[in-house]
């Protein structure tokens, strides 16, 4: 007799993703799918997908999803949750979507204390458009639009949106996790699960920031990308529970 101890989550479709080798999006998608299955909410969950590399995340998940315009995911999610409070609504957003073009929507949804779950992928660069500076790009980091490295005099500092949001009384839970190792990935899943459970318990706004590898636009190997998260990114974006 044998037990199935590992299989494709029901919430994940059986197709290959379009992501580059070593990208963190596929892992984050799977973690969400596993949590949705484990919490038995596949038939009530509604995902709000971003513009960016994860624009077609809805192709990979097997549950209801709505696309949102660039940066507007939390405005869209706010309305879906207000109309259907019985459903579990989450957004999945990159750093450009959540912390640049959508900063306004992000801050105000959090400040209203919307009972939502927000999964924030921070990979310090714009992937879909070809490796330009993100609000979270590190100082000195070379991108297509910071050719000699990000310079605070010209480009400002990496934006710590999670720390900023933690100041808001409407926010229940914020945690940052580095997806730089199997242990990190397990921690990420735990944080995602808690962020969904909070919503199920009507606890308010929860956000999980995942430090996620982008070997392609960091110009390194997948393995080197994980080292860079651990040794460089976490210096600016320290993992741990922020609120």
């Amino acid at each position, binding site marked *: 007799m044998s037990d199935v101890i590992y299989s494709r989550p029901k919430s994940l479709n059986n197709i290959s993703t379009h992501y580059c080798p070593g990208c963190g999006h596929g892992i984050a998608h799977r973690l969400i799918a596993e949590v949705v299955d484990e919490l038995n909410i596949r038939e*009530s969950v509604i995902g709000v997908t971003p513009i960016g590399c994860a624009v077609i995340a809805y192709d990979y998940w097997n549950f209801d999803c709505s696309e949102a315009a660039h940066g507007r995911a939390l405005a869209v999610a706010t*309305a879906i949750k207000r109309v259907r409070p019985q459903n579990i609504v989450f957004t999945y957003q990159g750093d450009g979507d959540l912390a640049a073009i959508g900063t306004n*929507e992000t801050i105000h949804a959090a400040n209203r204390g919307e009972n939502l779950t927000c999964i924030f992928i921070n990979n310090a660069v714009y992937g879909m458009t070809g490796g330009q500076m993100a609000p979270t790009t590190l100082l000195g980091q070379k991108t297509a639009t910071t050719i000699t490295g990000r310079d605070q005099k010209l480009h400002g500092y990496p934006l710590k949106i999670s720390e900023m949001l933690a100041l808001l009384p409407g926010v229940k839970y914020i945690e940052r996790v580095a997806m730089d190792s199997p242990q990190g990935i397990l921690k990420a899943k735990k944080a995602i699960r808690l962020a969904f459970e909070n919503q199920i318990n009507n606890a308010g706004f929860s956000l999980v920031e995942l430090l996620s590898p982008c070997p392609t636009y960091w110009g390194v190997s997948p393995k080197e990308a994980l080292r860079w998260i651990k040794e460089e990114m976490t210096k600016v974006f320290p993992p741990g529970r922020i609120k």
Partner: protein
Amino acid sequence: MVNPKPKKILLSGNEAIAEGAIQAGCQFYAGYPITPQNELTAYMAKHMPENNRIFIQSESETAAINMVYGASAAGARAMTSSSSPGISLKQEGISYLAGAELPAVIVNIMRAGPGLGNIWPSQADYFQATRGGGHGDYRCIVLAPSSVQEAYGQMFKAFELADKYRNPVMILGDGLLGQMMEPVEIVKAEGLDAKYDKPWAVTGCKGRERNITKSFHMNEGDLEKANLILQKKYAGIQKKEQDWEEFLIKDAKIVIVAYGSMARIAKGLVRKLRQGGMRIGLIRPVTLWPFPVKAFANRKPKVSNRKFLVVEMSYGQMVEDVRLSLEGSSKVEFLGRSGGGVLTQAQILRKIKALL
């Protein structure tokens, strides 16, 4: 008990639009304050929660239209309102609504522009409203009320058309209509929102395949296919939904063409001039998109040398649609004013006298 006389109450255009929306089953409103439509938002803030509906004062017009997108995706009758500069901000969201084929109602109580302009009446957003306004090949259905009662009634029609065609519908009024008060007959209506099934809505995939609301079509040929579906829908709307009012045009030597507030001012003038024996008439487009081409095309007027005089609170926008509809068969003159000033009957009369 039958109420022999329906109750009339004095409402501003803004309040009537809000009350009409509530009676038409609007379940979700999001908006951001801007003059001259603030009474609409305030009315919704008070009366939506009283009716167990959702009201959100959003952080921006951009957020408001995207909230409408979310509410609509979730299956609710949803609307927002604003005035010209705020409507510019909403264009991104309106394009997404059209692309994802989501029903929504957007109210524009126009003020004068460009830029910050001022807060007084204008009709200078006609092009923006009727040509789509945002990016891509799409159209909004555009209704133009010319009285407070009509503004109230058009809210029922707006939500109906939005659901029927899964398309954004815009109510195009202006500061004059929004601010003025007139008696309104209130119709109590129930269950209007339940008329259209929304099997496409994102409600959780219990007992069915998952739903996705989106406007993104990356695979080669897919977007063209989706756009052709939209175009077919728009052609159907153009065929079926043109609406206009004709007033004393049969023997008219000059037919004034005007919509919204400008039309009621023109209509009052036509009535006055008819008493003095002048052969003047009026065509008032009620739908601005689809433009009522049928009111102009294929008509052989018995009156020779009939002229059309288009009167707008802009420097000439709807006049282009009138010219396109007439296809050169009649002379089209124009009188316009823009920047917050309302054309008076005396000004229109001067132009008419010059044309006769």
